């Protein structure tokens, strides 16, 4: 089963808190929940909405069709009516947002007491509870749902940003440097708030621009501290000289890159997978790096941990690549386990040089051709060691029918929609999710060679993963088999299922 609820309204009307309390109720009832956020670059007004999807089995995406439409303002109905199912329920009126929470609880058959408990955690709860009760009592409609009454436990309900922060803190993060930029900002917010919790040693620091952010990060890292810096595409562009310096000076650094549609300022609050090439090829000169792309919050935590591990061990920059969808959508997902202990490779401040230098001679600048050549070879050897060690990790994952001849390839935040599309659409295919973009597992090529039909799914216009696959394996994916979405929105599972079926024929 799947049920999708849209909460729409003006910024400031509180659709987020409404989505939260309904999600909590559903989880306590025993449903699996996923919700994504669609909001504009403004503070008050406009049209914002969240899509909450739930089911009695795990799900990680939204569908394009709406079961319940909650309209906090008049605009919402007009904008979403076309997506409403035939028997879809509409809630509208001039009421407070918690009135709608009460009403939705009634429709979904969730105990009002759960809602009241949730609301007690908030400020001014008495007023809110009053509204919620009124909504609950007024509402007469009911949705037919499986009768579950076993709260889901041992799973975390979190977005990618919180999971990244969690991964960083659990890898020994000392400092997070950033300049605010959507959609990387939630990590800055999370880590800043986490500072206030007990036993947290890390600090977050905001500096004048992203250049200062990465350079100060390198200065801090050079003293033997664990450092992460974060931004989105435009801010990351400014960081690239620092990334290159990290390559030459061999100072560890973890870079969090959360993408939104570009080029230029692009579309600030929407999603895109357009920065894969940027992550792979940015920074002048030739140097090693890791580019890791998690597909859900669990992987966000684990790959952040691995990013720290590799960055410290080999003194290379590690990039964690997400996008707005993964950064801000909330998933009900397993907790991460078996995080690696990150050992700091720098004990105390040494000498580091952005100029080519002699390793053995106090990092003194050199123009000696023998040393230049030797250093390139040494750095190249380091790359080979990284390639070798990373094969011990899950550089890719395979889902679905292992023996199917149809192969779907995806990466990052499209994972959720692909998984749901395959399950809900009963598609005969296996799904290859690539997590390590650089280094690229040598075990991927045979999987592609075995497949009869390959479909690739990406949230960008040029299919950057297909280019990477071509470069690394020599296998060219036919343009007809590329399912690309580049309107700033994530894939819906139902639409994607249809697309995949068409391409697989």
């Amino acid at each position, binding site marked *: 089963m799947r049920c999708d609820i849209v909460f729409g309204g003006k910024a400031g009307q509180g659709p987020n808190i409404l989505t939260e309390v309904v999600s909590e109720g559903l989880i306590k009832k025993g449903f699996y929940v996923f919700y994504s956020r669609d909001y504009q670059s403004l503070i008050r007004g406009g049209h914002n909405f969240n899509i909450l999807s739930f089911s009695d089995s795990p799900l990680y995406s939204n569908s394009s069709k709406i079961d319940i439409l909650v309209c906090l303002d008049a605009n919402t109905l007009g904008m979403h009516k076309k997506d409403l199912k035939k028997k879809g329920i509409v809630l509208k009126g001039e009421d407070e947002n918690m009135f709608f929470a009460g009403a939705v609880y009634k429709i979904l058959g969730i105990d009002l007491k759960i809602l009241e408990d949730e609301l007690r955690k908030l400020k001014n709860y008495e007023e809110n509870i009053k509204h919620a009760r009124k909504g609950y009592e007024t509402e007469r409609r009911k949705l037919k749902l499986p009768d579950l009454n076993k709260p889901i436990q041992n799973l975390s309900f979190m977005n990618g940003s919180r999971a990244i922060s969690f991964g960083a803190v659990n890898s020994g993060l*000392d*400092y997070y*440097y950033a300049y605010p930029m959507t959609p990387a900002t939630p990590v800055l917010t999370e880590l800043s708030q986490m500072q206030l919790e007990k036993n947290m040693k890390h*600090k977050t*620091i905001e*500096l*004048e*621009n992203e*250049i*200062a*952010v990465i*350079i*100060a*990060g*390198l*200065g*801090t*890292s*050079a*003293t*033997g*501290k664990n450092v992460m810096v974060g931004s989105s595409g435009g801010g990351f562009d400014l960081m690239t*000289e*620092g990334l290159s*310096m990290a390559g030459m*000076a061999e100072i560890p650094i973890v870079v969090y890159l959360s993408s939104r549609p570009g080029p230029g300022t692009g579309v600030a609050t929407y999603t895109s997978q357009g920065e894969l090439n940027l992550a792979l090829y940015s920074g002048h000169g030739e140097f090693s790096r890791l580019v890791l792309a998690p597909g859900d919050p669990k992987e966000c935590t684990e790959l952040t941990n691995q990013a720290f591990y590799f960055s410290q061990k080999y003194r290379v920059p590690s990039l964690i690549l997400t996008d707005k969808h993964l950064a801000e959508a909330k998933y009900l997902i397993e907790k991460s386990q078996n995080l690696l202990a990150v050992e700091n490779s720098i004990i*105390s*401040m*040494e*000498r*580091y*040089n*952005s*100029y080519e*230098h002699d390793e053995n001679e*106090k*990092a*003194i*600048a050199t123009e000696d051709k023998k040393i230049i050549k030797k250093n390139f070879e040494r750095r190249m050897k380091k790359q080979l060691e990284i390639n070798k060690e990373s094969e011990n990790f899950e550089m890719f994952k395979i889902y679905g029918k292992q023996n199917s001849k149809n192969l779907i390839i995806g990466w990052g935040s499209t994972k959720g929609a692909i998984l749901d599309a395959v399950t809900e659409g009963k598609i005969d295919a296996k799904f290859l999710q690539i997590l390590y973009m650089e280094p690229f597992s040598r075990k991927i090529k045979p999987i592609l060679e075995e497949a009869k039909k390959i479909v690739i799914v990406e949230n960008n216009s040029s299919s950057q993963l297909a280019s990477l696959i071509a470069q690394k394996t020599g296998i060219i994916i036919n343009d007809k088999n590329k399912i690309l979405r580049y309107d700033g929105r994530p894939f819906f599972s139902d639409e994607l299922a249809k697309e995949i079926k068409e391409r697989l024929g």
Partner: protein
Amino acid sequence: MTKHKKVKKEKKKKIKTTKIKTKPMKTISRQHFQNIEIGLKCKRSPKVNIRTQTPSTWCPGCFNFQIMAGVQKYVESQIIAGKKREDFAIVTGIGCHAKIFDYLDLPGINSLHGRVLPTCLGIKIAKPELNVIGFSGDGDAYAEGMEHIVHNARYNSNIKYLVHNNQVFALTVAEPTPVTEKGYRDKTTPRGVKIFPLNPIKIMLASGASFVARVFADTEQVNKIFEEAFKHKGFAFIEILQPCIIFHNDAGYKERTYNLQEAGHDKINMNAAMQKAEEFDYNSKTGKIPLGIFYQKERDVFEELLRK
């Protein structure tokens, strides 16, 4: 003239004791003698020498020798007094000044062009106990890194920041910087510079730097201002007027200078500091050039506020 003679005598004496291996160049200018000599003349203990074995590639006679000697004298005196090499961290940008990274055997980072201060800040945030010294050129500080000097003045981290201001991009062969005077010509500006130079002292005062000073590229002056800067808790901005003997030889500057402290300047008075900053506009060929501390007023430092 008598001064020169005296200096020459002492130079001969010192060269014997410090055993300089590199042969002096055949055609050596008087300026060159003077610079190396003043560098060596200052009383440094033979026990501590933070100079690496790396031969210098600064031009013979470069005023960077004087600056380095001043820094060296200060750091070595601190080491003699009980500090360790590891208690210091040096950061350099890119340009002639940055070669000092190779000549001083101290921990640190030869960073990117313009990025000296963020590098210093990063080190200081993590290790407040380190004595962090940043070296920049005028291109580094006032062109590529302008945003950083303004903000670091505001942050007031306990960093000592030296700007080797020779009013020219020397290592890229003579292009004008933001502090080059109007009318200056090089191969890239055949019609001459048309824009008036910046006044960095005014910018630093306006940005909230808690210590703003200017000295001439002279060993003793550098050494003395270092002592003052290290006594100051907070961001210390020290501009060094440094003639580039190849591309911007303003040796005449030295004769125009006078010391603010000797002239009774009130260094805690912002208005007085601004007035003094106005006296030299980096453009005029005549008039007095004030040196010494323009402004000094302590306040909370960044790395301590971070831990509060």
